[in-house]
């Protein structure tokens, strides 16, 4: 009896699974450098303008940022439980995937609220920056901090949106009974991706919200 999930160039399902893991980690390594470039740039400019970065950070909402971090950590837990369900032919695979996606949407919603506050307070880099009520007290390089803030959290949010699309894909597959303990490779791979996006935020949060 042939395994329709086993591609012809692999000898065993385990070999295929391990190869998929290597491929995904190779991709994640490129993502580490991708975000790493922005972290490196951030490190340089924070060293050069420590006061402006501290000032910019003080304008971010610490409560929303902390809540968002907890939301993402919880979504990683539900993703890990989803993989466990797949590994054990558990009944709740689709629910755990759904919970992960829901938490991801909550995260993006809170981010949207934060972005709206920034637009409202004239803290978006560009012509409009600093034209709000605290224009007199802003240091010149604080605009640079906000450039980093929007670039890094924006890129992270884009990765979240992509992750949501991937979760929808395996969520549909899960509800159709596509996965089992014999074959759950896509669930594991998207789990790796999702955890990685969580790790990026684990570093973004202290670097942006907790300066000074």
């Amino acid at each position, binding site marked *: 009896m042939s395994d329709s999930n086993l591609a012809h160039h692999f000898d065993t399902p385990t070999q295929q699974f391990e190869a998929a893991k290597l491929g995904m980690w190779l991709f994640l390594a490129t993502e*580490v450098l991708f975000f790493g470039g922005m972290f490196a740039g951030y490190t340089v400019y924070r060293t050069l303008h420590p006061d402006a970065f501290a000032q910019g950070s003080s304008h971010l909402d610490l409560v929303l940022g902390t809540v968002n971090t907890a939301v993402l950590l919880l979504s990683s837990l539900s993703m890990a439980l989803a993989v466990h369900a797949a590994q054990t032919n558990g009944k709740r695979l689709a629910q755990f995937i759904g919970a992960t996606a829901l938490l991801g949407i909550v995260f993006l919603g809170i981010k949207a609220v934060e972005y709206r506050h920034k637009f409202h307070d004239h803290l978006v880099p560009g012509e409009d920056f600093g034209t709000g009520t605290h224009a007199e007290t802003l240091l010149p390089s604080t605009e640079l901090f906000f450039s980093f803030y929007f670039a890094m959290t924006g890129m992270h949010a884009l990765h979240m949106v992509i992750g949501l699309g991937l979760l929808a894909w395996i969520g549909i597959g899960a509800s159709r009974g596509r996965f089992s303990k014999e074959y759950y490779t896509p669930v594991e791979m998207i789990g790796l991706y999702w955890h990685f996006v969580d790790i990026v935020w684990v570093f973004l949060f*202290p670097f942006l919200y*907790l300066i000074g």
Partner: protein
Amino acid sequence: MDRSHHHVIEPKTYYTVFAALLVLLVLTVAAAQIPNPLVNIVVAITIAVVKAALIVLYFMHVRYSNSLVQLFVVAGFAWLMLLIALTLSDFSTRGWDRWESDIDRGRPPIATETMALE
């Protein structure tokens, strides 16, 4: 047909890791209240690294993966360390603001034959 022996981590481990992550989150927010900026950065980075390590080892199953996967993981972060270390060693050894340069004197920074050593 081979029996795939993927290590299954019990949910209890996941819950414990999650609880640890939340505790670390509270710690990192609390540590940010300490007025010393150097302590702030060191504690923040340390806690972030510990959280990331927990997620990598347990949620991403790297603790129970084969050594090739573990090598790939380490390699990715090693290259990031290289990026940051070499960039910072460049910036921290520049002489900006340390002595007056040609540009400060209003001259282009080009050597000419009549220029004396200063």
